[in-house]
């Protein structure tokens, strides 16, 4: 068994892990990163990036289909066809480019990459097993970034036609019928994409609404679009079993039903990967299913940090990256503490939903006296010009001092508003700051300024 030593060891090369390693390398720490799979973790390989690629392909295909029929723009094309295999290999190319890029960045930061499965022997030592043999790594400081994995349903185990999001990103053909279990953001993003690619999609959700993390005002335009795309939604319903291309379901009231579903996509959530890497050889405190950390991502054990999905909600790549950056700086001796005000979240459905900070309900639940206003995209010139007026921008602020607490939007292309939302809240802006900032015309961003002005009682374009 070969033996390596380093100052800083990162376990897991997802967005949290690789950012921690790059930053540590930049700061001159002798750093090793270990992963059994390709660099980039879930995000780059089977998550954020490939799903966005598939969603883009689905949008383009749907556009072509749309123009093959009656349309306002007077464009006519013939009915399009799709070679999904080629779509998937195009998507794989993007993934490969990005994971290769991560490898390059790690090299540039002088980080050593060790391929294999890491397992703790004790708080300072890790055994890495790969096809080439075993390596022992001793490190002064270790950062665990093992991420999360898709939750399986006991009655619908993954395999054959029951897919997790990973398999759904590499299907050989578009299934004629597809059932999606769970109307969270992953299920809706992929369900809508497959509906656009031509599948008859049915979404089964145990709760009484879609996207339970967002308020109903925000999800309404998404529901409307789902209906337009012919997606069937079965709320208050649970999946029972999948046999011979048929999915049997049972509703809350007890009525059973069966419908055709060539494939079943199970997206009922993700769980942290807390087993399989030798946690039993450590003494880590837990926080429910997650590893417990403090505001510096320190675990209960000295010299062991944890970041990313492993450490709790929201399980988002950009949270993990910020944590990774912070941990590297702490290990390099900087004074750092988690002080982020906001972690924006985006749902890449059609239309997209973006939320930063508190919604009106959340603010009220905190006992805050608030004012809130929204501005409809129907009154925004750019939205009209791109034929998508469904959606709005909403702002939530404190009533006493107009401090902006939250910004939300739903609309085609609204994901890009998230950076402005994050900046506004992180900088501690007031309604007057946003209202007093010139927002370029004609953009959807104008709706943000108008929402702020409307909250102040003097919107100009409504």
């Amino acid at each position: 068994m070969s033996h390596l030593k380093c100052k800083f060891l990162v376990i897991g090369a997802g967005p949290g892990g690789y950012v921690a390693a790059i930053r540590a390398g930049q700061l001159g720490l002798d750093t090793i990163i270990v992963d059994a799979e390709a660099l980039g973790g879930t995000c780059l390989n089977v998550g954020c990036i490939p799903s966005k690629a598939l969603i883009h392909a689905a949008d383009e295909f749907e556009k072509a289909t749309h123009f093959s029929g009656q349309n306002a723009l007077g464009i006519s094309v013939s009915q399009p066809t799709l070679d999904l295999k080629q779509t998937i290999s195009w998507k794989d190319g993007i993934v490969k480019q990005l994971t290769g890029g991560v490898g390059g960045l790690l090299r540039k930061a002088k980080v050593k990459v060790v391929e294999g499965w890491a397992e703790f022997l004790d708080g300072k030592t890790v055994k890495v097993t790969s096809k080439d043999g075993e390596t022992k790594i001793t490190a002064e400081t270790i950062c665990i970034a093992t991420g999360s994995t898709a939750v399986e349903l006991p009655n619908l185990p993954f395999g054959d036609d029951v897919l997790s999001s990973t398999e759904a990103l590499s299907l050989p053909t578009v299934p004629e019928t597809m059932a999606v279990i769970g109307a969270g953001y992953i299920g809706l993003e992929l369900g809508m994409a497959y509906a656009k690619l031509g599948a008859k999609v049915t979404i089964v959700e145990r709760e009484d609404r879609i996207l339970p993390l967002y308020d109903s005002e925000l999800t309404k335009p998404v529901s409307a679009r789902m209906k337009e795309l012919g997606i069937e939604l079965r709320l208050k319903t649970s999946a029972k079993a999948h046999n011979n291309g048929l999915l049997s379901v049972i509703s809350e009231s007890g009525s059973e039903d069966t419908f055709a579903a060539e494939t079943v996509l199970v997206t009922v959530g993700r769980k942290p990967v807390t087993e399989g890497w030798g946690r039993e050889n450590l003494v880590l405190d837990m926080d429910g299913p997650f590893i417990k950390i403090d505001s510096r991502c320190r675990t209960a054990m000295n010299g062991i940090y944890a970041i990313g999905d492993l450490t709790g909600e929201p399980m988002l790549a950009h949270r993990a990256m910020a944590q990774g950056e912070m941990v590297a700086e702490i290990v390099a001796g900087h004074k750092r503490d988690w002080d982020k005000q906001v972690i924006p979240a985006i749902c890449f459905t059609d239309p997209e939903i973006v939320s930063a900070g508190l919604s009106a309900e959340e603010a009220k639940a905190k006992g805050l006296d608030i004012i809130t206003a929204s501005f409809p995209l129907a009154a925004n010139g750019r939205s009209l010009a791109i034929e998508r007026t469904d959606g709005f921008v909403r702002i939530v602020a404190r009533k006493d001092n107009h401090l902006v607490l939250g910004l939300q939007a739903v609309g085609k292309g609204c994901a890009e508003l998230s950076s402005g939302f994050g900046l506004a809240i992180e900088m501690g802006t007031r309604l007057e700051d946003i209202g007093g900032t010139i927002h370029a015309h004609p953009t959807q961003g104008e709706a943000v300024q108008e929402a702020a002005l409307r909250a102040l009682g003097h919107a100009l374009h409504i």
Partner: protein
Amino acid sequence: MGEHIIKMPDIGEGVAEAELVEWTIEIGAQVREDDVLASVMTDKATVEIPAPKDGKIIWLGAEIGDTVAVGSPIIRMEVDGEGNIQPGETVEVVKTEKPAREPEAKPEAAPKTEAKSAPPAPTVKTTSPPPAPRRATGEKPLAAPSVRRRAMDAGVDLRRVAGSGPVGRILHEDLDLYLSNADAEVAPAASGTLKADTSTKEIKVVGLRRKIAEQMSRAKSRIPHITYVDEIDVTAVEELRERLNKERKEGQAKLTLLPFLMRAMAKAIKDQPQMNARFDDDAGVIHQSGGMHMGVAAQTDNGLVVPVVRHVEARSLRECAAEVARLAEAARTGTATRDELSGSTITITSLGKLGGIVTTPVINHPEVAIVGVNKMRTLPVWQDGEFVPRKMMNLSSSFDHRVIDGWDAAVFVQRIKGLLESPATIFIED
């Protein structure tokens, strides 16, 4: 109208660069031909740069403390008639970089370099909001990420900082204020007319002071010093000195103890030539000098300089005295030439009445020995069964222990002691 450009003059002796130590004019100044514009300094000589013709200063190419390459433009003047360059023609200043003293591992490692305050934000006219209440107890402090990071680096808990921005937002200025007040808190409280002064004055170390600093750290970091102190009964030599001064002819310099010491040292060096040397430690070669060129450390208004009395072995007592007096005057008035301030092979240092009883002299690198003269006092000395008043003086001498053994150092000082205590022996031809 034309433009005239003045370049860093070639001061000779293969000097490739010089340090700008003073601007005597500023941009916009009208100057006449031969007015002094600037002073630049090389290793030891300071050179003034005069105006070549009448004109107006329009550009200065270096800051005080910059080391500028010879031939690099440093001043532009607007002059009547033709200048020596085309107006507006670009010229490049070649500043020679000083090697970084402490190569930091990464620039990242010094978070202090962060901007002290954010550039002023564009002011935007907005309707005035309701008067915002200050932050209530327990509420999170509001601050931009850059302010938070600065606070974290400085170890400041933002909850303790009052915010003056909108909504009580903590601005960089608020943090500045808090940090300066925090300094004051550490100082003892003001009582009566005594007040704590928390100000800090930044003084750029330039010119002669920088040369001294560099020379001192070079000497102290490279040379393992051994310092040896012994007391010398100077009663006899003082009697002789007074007598000689009484018999002094017109035009002769008044004798101090220094020329006696120089002559005694010359004699001691004859026995131990290894004391009179320059040690090139990079090359590992000792250049033992035949000529005894004694540096005599002198305090001037600007700091320490070391004029050199050349060939002491060939000078009489009176000649030594005359040369010391001449050099001391030149050093004080700043007219000493480069030659007169360099090339010593051994150094004598004395603080006169402030000499104290012991010093630890710093060797004038690359020399190998320095003799320090302490204060002379009349002390009771036990002699022949009784106390007698004697004039006593200590010599504190340092040696480069790499090349001078302690034994040899002791022998050298004892030899000087013996010569000074029986001054007639100084003048006996061998």
